């Protein structure tokens, strides 16, 4: 960490490889769009390059990174609200259309309907296979909070799926 702060590119590369996937999924939880989430994650590391030297508490690198990433994602959302013109062509749109099964679509929509605070925990835990401890460290919250949020999120997802007539499991 300290080495990266002093401008060591290899150390920075290690940080990048360690946190990149987490940032992509974190941004996805806000943007609900994988391509834009990758854009946001990459832009996050650009911001990190610019400001890493100013980071005082290196033990808070994870939450600091997550805050930058959320900010980048929010900026993309704001940009999205501008009058929409052709941005990346029809291919981009076609790629976003969900080709999964109907059940998967329902589950994904139930996750999309969650509050962002809960959605990010679900996405990091299930999509990025992170443990409670890892999520807590990355977001700067306690493991207990992660557990609580995930519990509530699962309950909400279950409720939404039931309402949609989703077949009971097993």
């Amino acid at each position, binding site marked *: 960490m300290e080495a*990266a*702060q*002093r*401008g*060591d*590119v290899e150390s*920075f590369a290690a940080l*990048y*490889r*360690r946190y*990149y*996937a987490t940032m*992509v*999924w974190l941004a996805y939880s806000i*943007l609900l*769009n*994988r391509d*834009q989430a*990758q854009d946001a994650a*990459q832009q996050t*590391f*650009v911001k990190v*390059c*610019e400001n*890493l*030297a100013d980071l*005082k508490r290196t033990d808070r690198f994870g939450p600091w990174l997550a*805050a930058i990433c*959320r*900010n980048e994602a*929010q900026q993309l*959302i*704001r940009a*999205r*609200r501008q*009058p*929409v013109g052709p*941005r990346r062509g029809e291919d981009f*749109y076609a790629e*976003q*259309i*969900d080709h*999964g099964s109907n*059940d998967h679509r329902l*589950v*994904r929509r139930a*996750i999309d309907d969650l509050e962002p*605070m809960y959605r990010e925990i679900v996405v990091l835990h*299930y*999509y990025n296979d992170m443990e409670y401890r890892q999520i807590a460290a990355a977001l700067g919250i306690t493991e*207990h*909070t992660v557990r*609580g949020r995930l519990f*509530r999120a*699962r309950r909400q997802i*279950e409720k939404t799926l039931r309402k*949609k007539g989703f077949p*009971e*499991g*097993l």
Partner: protein
Amino acid sequence: MARSKRADWLDQIIREAKPGQTPRADFDAWRDAHAVAIRQLRQRGATIPQSEPFLALISRLARNSARSRTGKLAVAAAVVAGAFILLTWRAGRQSPPAVPPTTATDQATSPRPEVLDPEQEELRLADDLFTRGDVQGLLSLLHSARSRTVFAVAAYLGRIGDASSVPTLQALAAQWQGSPQDNPFQKAIDQIRHENGQDEAESTQNTQAPAGVLQTTQEPEPSPSEISPLTCRGVVVDRSGSPIRDAEVWAQSCTENLKLTDLTTPVPTDPQGTFSLTAPTDNVDATDRVYLLCRHGGHALGWLRPPTDGQTTDLNDCRIVLYRPTFVAGIVTDTRGRGVSGALVEARMTPAHEPASVQEYPCTAGNERAAQTDATGRFILKDVPENSLLSLSVSRRGYRHYDSREGYGQFMGTSPYLDPESHTIRAGRRDIEIELLPAEGQINVQVVREQGGLHDGPVVLRCESPSNGLGPWFCRYDRGDCTLMEPAQRGICTSQGHGRFRIDGLPVGQYLIAAADPLSGDLITPLTEVVIRPSQLHAGATLRAARTARVTVRARTPTGEPVGGLLLTAGSGFMVRKRTDADGLCLFRLFEGDSAIQSHGWDCDSAGHVVRVTPDLADRQIDMPVGMPFLLRGRLVDESGSPVRGSVSLLLGGWVSTDADGRFVIPHRAPDARLQGYARDAEGKRALVFAGTPPSAGGELEVRLERVAVFTGRAMDQHANPIVEAPAAFSLDVQEVDSTGYRYSQLRCEVFIFDGRFRLDVPVGRPLRMGIYCPTLQLRGRAEPIDPAPGQTYDLGDMVLDPASSQNP
């Protein structure tokens, strides 16, 4: 511990729904694309070892030295010395506020010239007039001056004690929107009366009026024939329909400003459960709501909003159903799961059989309950009717305001957008868990006068957040007190005095803020945008007053009669709401540029006016043609023509309920205007969106309900993201389909959507095709034709709005 099979199954399906694989972290590709960033990393990093940041050094030294007793003493001494230096520095920097207050910058750079701003000129003029005892001059100043001067003039008039100034002061006192105790005009009137010995005579006339509020009875009273009392007869029954004897029934009125007044004393019901009461309506405005409240031991407080409009005088079928009392209990926690004590939990209730009225947001003590959480964060709301649906809001300083209905669509007038199961809580639940989010964002606001210097007079801050679907809400500052004026408390506002405010507990997002004159409601500063970012939770805004032009609106009927009491909105960005006076006049102060002025109520087809205020800020006068007042009477029937109990609403209007004969009355519509409305039965199985011209005078509109199916869905943009523009108006049109294709557009209605989702009742019996159009983004989408069956719900899924469809509607 073994997990249940269901939990494992849920885990599994969530994992299976993962949208694609986790992306690979290709650092080399990223480095190639962002070589500049890498160079910056190297350059910034190279400076670190040479000079440790000063604060980090202090912090490290403090940590090290704090391990020993001597070190602790040294740190304490350093902190005290630092605080002393800081205080001395601030004291030197902030001179005590004087009139006019000046900023430190003003003092440092240049002495203030002897140029008074317009407000100070007005104050000086008022002083002169008071010294000369010129009552007429002061009265004319009352109409033209700014609010700070107006308050001073009112005080001067009170001290002069001339009775001729009372009518003018009364008119202003009636417009006062703040707390009655602070009403400066009422104080002046009281002082004049005291000096003229009229105290006792007047007070006997006003026994019904709340203290400090001047009622219209003090103005020239209309003849008794003009104002008829409201007579209500009806029955009080329990849930099974059995009459209840000895229940107490009384009438209450609620103004637009949420002021409650008991119109009658309680009357008991007879052994058949019937009651009859007569409520005086001379203090009831046409815009007020009248409620019947009912109390009986063993039952929860009951209430009914009778289908009255301020003009109907005889109601014969008021049926009040009383329910057994139950309670609602739960816990309020923070994000760590700890109970939050001292949080205010407020509930608004509506009968479960009439869910549409949740949207109406009725205000009366009869359907509100409140409680505070105890030390463990638990709360109990008592005396809740057993069949109610509740919407909850929770406020606590330091936390974000919670509202169970937040984020869902607002009702606009033609289609309900409400899912009682999701948005409300059923009475009797005792396991409610509400998690309060921490107060994330803060906005520090300072209001600056046009000439410079902080604005230290009374001011109202107006704030809303389109990106969060919040607001508007208002915060009023007046001589040291800072109070929220709107019930929707989205953030907690405090004032540091002299035009400085702090708003806490705001979510991340974009905010629009402006300062307004508390008396007239006109904006004194243009709109300012503030963004709270996740990386910067504290934001600041300086609102600088700007000069305005006086724009007078004259509301006239086609025959030239002035229209008083007409609701007008004007402005660009924030709209200011005002009503015309008895002469049909209304004065707005508008900034340079284009502003829209629109009338509401009588003429629902009014397109409004666009006023261009020129840079010279010349006064303008606008003529606003208004239709004649009209009382729309109608009847709600089903397919067979039988009367239906239900509710009816017109576009831009509120809901009215029908009586047992299905009859309803909606006031103030122009007979030549086009009607657009929505009606539904109490069970929500039949509905109708209707449009057309109203019946001729004396006629009755028959609304024949149709059996409906429910269409739901979500509006998505072409990138498959939900459209979260807030508020974005979408129109949904339904086309009949025959063998040749789409014949004609049958129905059309608009809903507000905050999160892209919509819900619409659509008549059945023919194939239909739904279209959706978002005017703000100029996008359009269509669904496949459906032949709906009655009582069914059809989820249209994600309706993609894209330019391609828009070009070929």
